[in-house]
């Protein structure tokens, strides 16, 4: 197995290979990264003069989509050596099992589907606003345009989709983007960009994307890059630490979109405990939403609140539901979910410790096969923020509306079963911070997975609309007398 990976810097159409200025980073899984010293390439990474975005601004959205769609056709892992290399490294450095990661990679071209891309950008920003100045319907002397910006993206690596998503979104917003790759997925963005460069390194999209790896918290890099003269917008995924480092350099004029770590859950109605069939259906839904991508994503359920009393008979049923969830994990297709590569020592120790406490907890399964901790009283486990490796905590609550006390801005997705609960909970959950409610019904794992993910293009993300946020909305305010007729402006 290769131990050393060369990670070139992608610098707006150019590939800078690690040469004399090579630096070495110790990566995850024992891999070593070699990359050109990012300290010496700051000027290759940032766009000091925003007016240089003109080439991309003047490229019609249609052309951008055509270019991306053409690139998408080449993003097949079977015959793309760049993706093969990044796949191998992501497999080692990241947390996903082989069949799942392969599935994620095989789905990459879907993000480059021309119709989906058009719908995405048209429904969020509106292609007219990107390609020209749009008069206000009620005051045509004022026209508005969505203008591309200079963006830094500190991306998450737990699911490599983020790399592709960032590139597509950057191009569609006609923006200049710098991607700082994460150590758990250092090559995917790189591989996609090298594919684009092969297609046409001179395309304006390629001229405005840079990709590099440096160590998170590198103050020199942050201080050089995060300046109002060089960056307009920052999108920071993931950990508090990544956001906190950046915050030191934030000044008014730089807009931060913090896609904070999220924490998702499910709510299950009492019907699930009333018949074998309903329990099976709920257990399958829970196994899918907790287990897909091996619980590495923010969408994955970690806590399950069940409408239930806490008498012994009810708790026995909860334990039964727990066993069914663990059993359902084992039945998930391997492109969705697999047993963990290794036990999670910390979490395993937590499970073992609470398993000694019959009065309070019942434990089923473990951190390799997946597991369940059933609380025997209405509160989550104290280590709820460590639930990983397909381990969920089932918590009985008499009234599911009480669950709002555990909801906040970090509560991204809530799985619901049965649908009867939805209208009862929707408004309260929305106010409490929940960002999305999804169905768990049906009992067929692949169908449930697709249902969870089937959304029209351009839906909000984590309660915000990142695409709208990442452009600058500029007003061209003319004298009233010079109002441009709608028909002309729309050209």
């Amino acid at each position, binding site marked *: 197995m290769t131990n050393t990976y060369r990670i070139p810097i992608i610098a707006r159409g150019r590939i800078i290979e690690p040469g004399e200025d090579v630096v070495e*980073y*110790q*990566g*995850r*899984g*024992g891999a070593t990264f070699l990359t050109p010293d990012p300290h010496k390439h700051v000027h290759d990474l940032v766009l000091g003069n925003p007016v240089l975005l003109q080439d991309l601004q003047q490229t019609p959205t249609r052309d951008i989509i055509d270019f991306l769609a053409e690139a998408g056709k080449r993003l097949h892992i079977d015959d793309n050596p760049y993706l093969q290399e990044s796949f191998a490294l992501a497999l080692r450095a990241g*947390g996903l099992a082989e069949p799942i990661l392969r599935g994620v990679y095989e789905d990459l071209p879907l993000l480059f589907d021309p119709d989906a891309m058009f719908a995405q950008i048209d429904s969020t920003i509106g292609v007219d606003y990107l390609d020209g100045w749009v008069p206000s319907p009620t005051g045509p002397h004022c026209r508005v345009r969505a203008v591309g910006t200079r963006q830094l993206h*500190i*991306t*998450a*690596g*737990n*699911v490599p989709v*983020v790399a592709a998503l960032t590139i597509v979104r950057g191009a569609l917003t006609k923006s200049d983007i710098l991607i700082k790759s*994460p*150590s*758990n997925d250092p090559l995917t963005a790189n591989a996609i960009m090298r594919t684009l460069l092969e297609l046409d390194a001179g395309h304006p999209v390629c001229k405005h994307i840079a990709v590099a790896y440096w*160590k*998170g*918290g590198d103050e020199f890099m942050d201080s050089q890059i995060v300046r109002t003269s060089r960056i307009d917008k920052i999108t920071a*995924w*993931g*950990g*508090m*630490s*990544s956001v906190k480092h950046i915050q030191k350099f934030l000044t008014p004029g730089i807009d931060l979109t913090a*896609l*904070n*770590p*999220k*924490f998702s859950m499910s709510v299950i109605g009492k019907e699930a405990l009333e018949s074998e069939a309903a329990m099976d259906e709920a257990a399958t839904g829970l196994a899918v939403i907790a287990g897909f991508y091996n*619980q*590495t*994503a*923010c969408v*994955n359920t*970690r806590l399950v609140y069940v409408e239930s009393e806490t008498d012994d008979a009810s708790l026995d049923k909860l334990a039964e539901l727990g066993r069914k969830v663990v059993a359902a994990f084992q039945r998930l297709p391997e492109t969705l979910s697999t047993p963990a590569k290794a036990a999670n*020592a*910390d979490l395993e*120790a*937590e499970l*073992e*410790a*609470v*398993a*000694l*406490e*019959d*009065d*309070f907890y019942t434990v089923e399964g473990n951190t390799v096969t997946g597991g369940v901790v059933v*609380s025997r*009283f209405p*509160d989550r*486990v*104290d280590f709820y*923020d*460590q*639930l*990983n490796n397909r381990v969920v905590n089932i918590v009985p609550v008499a009234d599911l509306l009480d669950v709002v006390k555990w909801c906040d801005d*970090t509560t991204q997705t809530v799985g619901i079963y049965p649908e009867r609960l939805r209208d009862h909970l929707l408004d309260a959950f929305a106010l409490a911070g929940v960002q999305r409610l999804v169905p768990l019904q049906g009992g067929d794992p692949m169908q449930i997975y697709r249902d969870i993910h089937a959304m029209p293009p351009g839906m909000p993300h984590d309660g915000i609309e990142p695409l709208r946020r990442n452009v600058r909305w500029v007003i061209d305010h003319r004298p009233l007398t010079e109002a441009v007729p709608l028909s002309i402006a729309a050209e």
Partner: protein
Amino acid sequence: MADVSQETFALSPEQPGNWLDDGYERLFQLSWRDYQDVQLAVLKRRFEELSTSVAALEKLVKREGVTSVNSFEDALPLLFDHRVYKSYPLSLIEKRDFPKLTGWLNRLTTHDLGAMDLAGLTTIEEWLDRLDAFGMLIGHSTGTTGKLSFLPRSGTERRSWQMAYQEASRAATGIDSRSDTVETFFPGYRGGHHMMLKMLWLFDVPAAGGPEHFHTLYPTHVPADLSSLAGRMQSAEDRGELAKLGLDPALLKAREEMIAQAKRRDQDVEAWFFKLFEQFRGKRVKIGGTFSDLIRTARSGIEKGLKPEFAPGSFISTGGGMKGFKDAPEDWEGYIKDYFGIEKLGMVYGMSEGMPNHPRCSQKNFHILPQTIPFLFDRDMKLLPREGVQTGRLAIFDLLAETYWGGFISGDQVTIDWEENCGCGWKGPTVGPVISRFAEMEGGDDKISCAGTAQAYNDFMDFVSQGLAPS
């Protein structure tokens, strides 16, 4: 049984609590390889007694399928993780559900806590007081991670615990606290059930000659309720719902005072030390506290031109690592000695979960006393050979634990030299001076994920517990 090389002295497996009765010196003349059979015999007996009378151990024994302990290896699956001592639901503390909390603790001890009267209890502090009155000696942790662990020690262990503490201090400092009491400074809290503070109160206050000779920075301590609920109180306060927690108003007031106090702490430590410098000029004293307290004081004393002058025979007794203290001087020990004008600096290595402390010798190694059976594990929890020099995660069996299970795996990474060649002349396995936290982290610390499973951050405890007590 042991093939005893010392003609005049051999350890008896009957009463490990008495092994120190004639002083630590003779124990350090024994090679651990010669007494390991005796240790095993004690461990075997502890297993036989406790595996049916400590419910949590009983469950673990069943789960691991351990039927008897005929070798050390047999007992290794039975090491308790620190989480076992805090496996109760935090909501029990929040609701002050004393029957359930007592029920939880009852599973960790041979004592029947069901017989304890719980009437009238309103705080965790009172609960711990009541347990003490009942004959327990429960110590809790600092709660920096948001949840207190409770160690179920009891009066049954008190004598052997005290002996181990005093003898380790005597070995480390050369001063016998039983016959030679000395004015003591400790720059921290006073009293309470925090394990470290409890030990000070049980053993160091008498060593000082009584409470009036034991000088602490603050007259009180952080109530266990406050340490334990800090996280919940903070989030309740953020929501403007602190009142809804239904906590004693006195506790809320104490919290505010603690926060204010913690912010002033550096100045307070200085002012307090400098006042004592004057008051005890020319007198013989003992100074306790963490390195960081002592270094900070020395630094600011040097800045202000303040120099203590204590009588000969004064000594420093310290421990607690460099937790939370950056840019310490390389030769911090010399730095402290120089500043305080005190030549003798005694140190012991220990952990809340084990009663015996292990004194540091003239060669700066910590020698492990035979009441503790040490083991080292590697990253994959494989046992490292008990030979040569090994670095790994430390686990112990504390043979002094009679009423609770003494098997414990720590979070400390240490280096043990098993070969007993220490230049000081003492025998026993030695722990080297570099002791760090056993970290699970590996490689690039900028692994970024969208899933929010990181440990929550706790500003309040960070303030309050900063260097106050080595845990």
